[in-house]
């Protein structure tokens, strides 16, 4: 990469919070010799390496695959979910997106439904609870079926696939000014509702998942589409409209 010989010096402002009950505060760190080719998480690894050497508590943050597919990494970077790049998870964000001397503000996702474990790590079990409420197909699947056994229109297959790209990272909730989970829930409803295997239970599904979402204390959508703009997988709010239709359909027809 063009300027990979130039290392960067950064000022980091990181949310530190010892435990769920600790008050927490923003703490300043200076980090030198950061390579523009590092990923954002490698930059944090570098900071943690130093903190450990100094005998200090490293910064806790979530991550797993580091290749943009698992949805574990989170981080509000300079006020934007997953940072400044479009359709890019934090783990796929690179330091070349920043300049030497930049101040970078790093915070955890903030929502009532996502309590903070420690530092930048939040508890996203609320999403699991929503899935458990109805985000599945309850048939015994057995062996993988023949790919073309059930004909599905290409358009539906594509739309279902687009919705299924959701990795459940919760950037939608984090970026929404109302901390609404509607993009996530609507993607999970859509990926099933659009396919014959999932259509069968679609009457109950939207109702059950939305009820759980409401119960967990997520906010209400105001159709601003910050979720769509922040989604690392480019999931769009037409899914939310579909969920709204599915909800009414279920409300009127489910017995």
């Amino acid at each position, binding site marked *: 990469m063009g300027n990979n010989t130039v290392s960067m010096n950064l000022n980091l402002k990181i949310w530190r919070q010892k435990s769920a009950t600790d008050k927490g505060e923003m703490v300043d760190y200076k980090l030198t010799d950061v390579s523009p080719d590092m990923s954002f998480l490698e930059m944090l690894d570098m900071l943690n390496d130093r903190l450990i050497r100094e005998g200090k508590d490293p910064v806790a943050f979530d991550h797993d695959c580091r290749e943009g597919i698992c949805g574990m990494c989170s981080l*509000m970077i*300079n006020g*934007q979910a997953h940072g400044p790049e479009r359709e890019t998870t934090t783990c796929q964000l690179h330091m070349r997106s920043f300049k030497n001397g930049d101040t970078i503000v790093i915070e955890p996702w*903030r929502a009532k439904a996502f309590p903070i474990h420690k530092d930048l790590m939040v508890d996203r079990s609320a999403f699991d609870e929503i899935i458990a409420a109805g985000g599945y197909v309850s048939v015994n699947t057995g062996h993988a079926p023949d790919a073309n056994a059930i004909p599905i229109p290409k358009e539906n297959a594509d739309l279902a696939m687009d919705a299924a790209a959701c990795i459940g990272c919760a950037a939608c909730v984090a*970026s929404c000014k109302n901390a609404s989970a509607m993009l996530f829930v609507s993607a999970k409803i859509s990926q099933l509702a659009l396919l014959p295997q999932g259509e069968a239970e679609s009457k109950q599904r939207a109702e059950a998942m939305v009820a759980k979402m409401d119960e967990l204390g*997520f906010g209400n*959508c*105001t159709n601003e589409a910050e979720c769509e703009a922040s989604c690392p997988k480019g999931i769009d709010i037409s899914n939310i409209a579909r969920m709204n239709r599915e909800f009414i359909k279920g409300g009127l027809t489910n017995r």
Partner: protein
Amino acid sequence: MSSRLTRIVGSSIVKKQAMAITGLLLCGFLVTHLAGNFLIIYSADAFNQYAYALTSNPLIYVAEAGLAALFLGHIGMAIKLTLENHKARPQKYYMKKPTGRGSTFASSTMPYTGMITLIFLVIHLINFKFGPLYMTTVDGVEMRDLYRTVVEYFASPLNVLWYIIAMVALGIHLSHGVWSAFQSLGFNHPSYTPTLRMASKAFAVLIVVGYSSLPIYCYLIQGGH
């Protein structure tokens, strides 16, 4: 069963849809109200007769009650949803920046433009409905000279200015609101969504220009008083 009904009716989605339906019906009111107001330009008598026809019809109480219910429903729901949304993020971000690809000025100021509209509405009712009472006779029928009340009010440039400012706020509210209402009701499709978004803005402009033109007209016919 009844708990299922309350859960559905009390759900985030139905609350949003109540917002949407009351909002769209209020848009219907805006159009009819504007059409009636244009009689001011046609003639004083026509305007007064129109107002008289409305207020002397006993059905006006039903219509007014319906309209009040729409406003109260819309405002009540707006307050409820906005409070819930605040509660959903008890601890705010140290830094929060819009992406520039999602929210707009209009979308992020809905509670404020709504509030301005509400304040306007109260002042509007005080000035006109419960404003100075003049009488006139048209075709032998004695009736309220609402035309005079209106025209006198708009002799003051400050009143004209406040009216226009309020209309601009309402227009901003609608430029996001109309499209948003359709989205809440489940209308979103690549074949018409871009048109709907445009139409939402066009409708807002129509309302702002339409409503603002009348105070300006009233002010001008009095030679700038």
